[in-house]
């Protein structure tokens, strides 16, 4: 079973989905990410799906659900790098399939995450020395 690496950049988590996931792998990814967010009290999560050529409705739902869970745990979420033809398919399947915020690529996604995090209240506590 493939395990998707979750990279940590300070208090932002970075995930890149490189290939199609089976249902079990998708569920595993979801719970891994959620637990990691809770563990380090992440401020933001960037999910990069540049490498995905096909996003079916199940995968779209997994991404969307994961975004909701992460938001419930108090982190900002950004989906990065949806391919143009994937975007068209997703819209044809249903408008709200991806409810999270999206960015053109990882670079812009991280920028937007950082801007948002800077506007939060808890960032001011990160440098008070007890982290």
């Amino acid at each position, binding site marked *: 079973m493939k395990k998707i690496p979750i990279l940590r950049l300070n208090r932002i988590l970075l995930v890149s989905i490189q290939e199609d996931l089976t249902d079990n792998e998708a569920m595993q990814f*979801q*719970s891994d990410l*959620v*637990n990691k*967010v*809770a563990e380090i*009290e*992440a401020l933001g999560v960037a999910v990069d799906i540049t490498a995905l050529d096909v996003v079916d409705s199940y995968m779209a739902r997994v991404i969307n*659900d994961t975004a*909701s*869970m*992460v*938001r*419930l*745990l*108090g*982190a900002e979420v950004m989906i990065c790098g949806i391919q143009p033809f994937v975007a068209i398919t997703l819209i044809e399947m249903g408008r709200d399939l991806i409810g999270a915020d999206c960015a053109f690529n990882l670079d812009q996604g991280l920028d937007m995450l950082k801007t948002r995090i800077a506007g*939060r*209240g*808890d960032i*001011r*506590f990160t440098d*008070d020395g007890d982290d």
Partner: protein
Amino acid sequence: MSLSLPTFLQARREAMLAEWIEASPGADAETSVSLSTEARNRQMEILFDEIMAPLLVDPPTDFLPGPEEQASLQEHLQAMVTEQARHAANATDPIALLFVLRQVLLDHLAQWPQASAETLAEDTARLTRYFDQITLFTFDSVIRQRDRQISEQSMSLMELSTPVLRLWHQILLLPLVGIIDTGRARQVTDHLLEAIARHEARVTVIDLTGVPIIDTSVAQHIMKTIDAARLLGSRVVLTGISPEGAQTLTKLGIRFGDVTCRASLRAGIAEALLLTGKCIASMEDSGR
């Protein structure tokens, strides 16, 4: 010389009582610490006489009255149940006590000199019916006793656990602990809205760290509380949702929409301070 059954039973009273007390459950155990053996024996003696009273009517009646017709028997049975509930570990103890007495009575019945096979069968049936009624009544009392205890405990829990704290100027904290049901949710909402109005709170932090299970109904209750607080003009920050809780909520299809969520109470407080234009800073920064 003919000896009627009631007279015979009357004569055997002491022996039967002694046997009952001897054989009753818990007689030898040290569980009845708070109730001395003497007090316990006296209580059993009173109960014994109450139960025996209809059996001692001379000449014997075909129909023995059930506990419904005997107010004083009811009273003593209930007293026994209450007493046992306070001291004994098993709910079946009062019932077992009655079964022991029935056995003692049946044993003595067999020793009645006038006993024939027919009268014995008849009397046994009569006695069994009588005890069945008493046992049913006692069982009912045991259940009602437990129900009363449970409802008393849940009342006291409910009153314990719904404080609304004033965290700072215009900031309220609502720490939720324990199971949230409809009654409690309404009470929590009432308390919170009252406090928001009283303190003119602009931000309310709701902490869910102490809520073990977040399911559809809990989420709905929390959502209603949040909506009500918003109508009063107070922003709500949710904190302390566990990873499992987040997964359950999302899989149940519950969306908290644009409610601000934060990982910990600490982050939630920081957010609340920001929303009211304040922050916590080190002493050096303020020039002291």
